């Protein structure tokens, strides 16, 4: 089992470890556009690159990647994982043209899930979780309806949307949304009702404490959103 309670230096909420375990297992499963082994390879590339994040990208000693992923997928996993401040529309459009928009979004969903779990481990002072064993099977190739252009680099859900844009950023791949936003609910926002309340009593920290951390992490990553 991943994220064993005994690995943590202090007790961790059961709903948090449950969410981490489910999302971690999802990485190894066939997705909508990538197979299980490809998804684990994407996670491994993002992790390895992020570990070297303090070195300039051009000087990182990477060796030959042990994967058959397309070159652009390798580049995207590394860049999203380690260098989010260097992402721009021109680069993303080139990656999307080569990979396809849904494959790009699914790749991003695997990377962000991996990075969030890894950063949590680093904050807790434990080793990164072992990557999941890839599962056999073919991608579902499901592409949702109701996608449209809101000015993002990728199509997103446009019908009946009342929530924050970031919550629909990965909506071209619903499974990626479920995997990552399950962790968001457990690690940050709680339920939709909780999120809309400015005074929190469902978490040990006050909401201003949580939002100060959110603002600082966002600023350190130069994230405008």
């Amino acid at each position: 089992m991943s994220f064993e309670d005994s690995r943590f230096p202090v007790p961790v909420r059961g709903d948090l470890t449950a969410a981490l375990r489910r999302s971690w297992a999802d990485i190894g499963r066939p997705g909508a556009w990538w197979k299980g082994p490809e998804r684990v390879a994407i996670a491994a590339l993002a992790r390895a690159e992020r570990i070297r994040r303090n070195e300039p990208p051009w000087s990182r000693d990477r060796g030959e990647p042990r994967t058959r992923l397309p070159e652009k997928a390798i580049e995207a996993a590394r860049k999203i994982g380690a260098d989010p401040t260097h992402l721009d529309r021109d680069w993303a459009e080139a990656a999307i043209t080569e990979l396809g928009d849904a494959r790009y979004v699914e790749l991003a969903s695997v990377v962000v899930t991996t990075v969030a779990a890894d950063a949590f481990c680093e904050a807790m002072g434990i080793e990164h979780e072992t990557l999941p064993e890839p599962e056999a099977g073919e991608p579902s190739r499901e592409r949702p309806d109701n996608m449209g252009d809101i000015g993002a680099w990728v199509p997103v859900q446009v019908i009946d949307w009342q929530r924050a844009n970031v919550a629909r950023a990965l909506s071209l791949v619903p499974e990626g949304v479920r995997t990552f936003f399950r962790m968001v609910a457990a690690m940050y926002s709680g339920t939709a009702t909780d999120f809309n309340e400015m005074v929190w009593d469902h978490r040990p920290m006050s909401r201003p404490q949580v939002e100060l951390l959110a603002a600082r992490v966002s600023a350190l990553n130069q994230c405008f959103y």
Partner: protein
Amino acid sequence: MLLRASSDAVGAEVDLSAAVEEAADGGVEDGAVLTAFAEAVVRATDDLNAARARALEALGPAKFVEAAATIGIFNGLVRVADSTGIPGDPQMLESTADVRGPLGFNRWAGARASGVAEAPA
């Protein structure tokens, strides 16, 4: 910015420059410990073990876990936004209009997706 809204809700005055300054408390309880912890994790500094220990001591185990979880998930959330070029929400853009320029947010690459980019300094 939810930092300001949540502070307003409890009648507290927050200093938003804590988002961009080193180990600043922003007027939030244990703020300096929290921001120093976040900085050490994001930057993978040599100070990480010490920053983590200070956070655990100051916050206690339950809040420490919440802080670690928040730092973890926001390292993912920023990549969701910045890998998809998602534009800012109208409400967020309106509520931060007075601080984005002075704090430098409008010079970040992601500001272009929201149509408010300024030239980098």
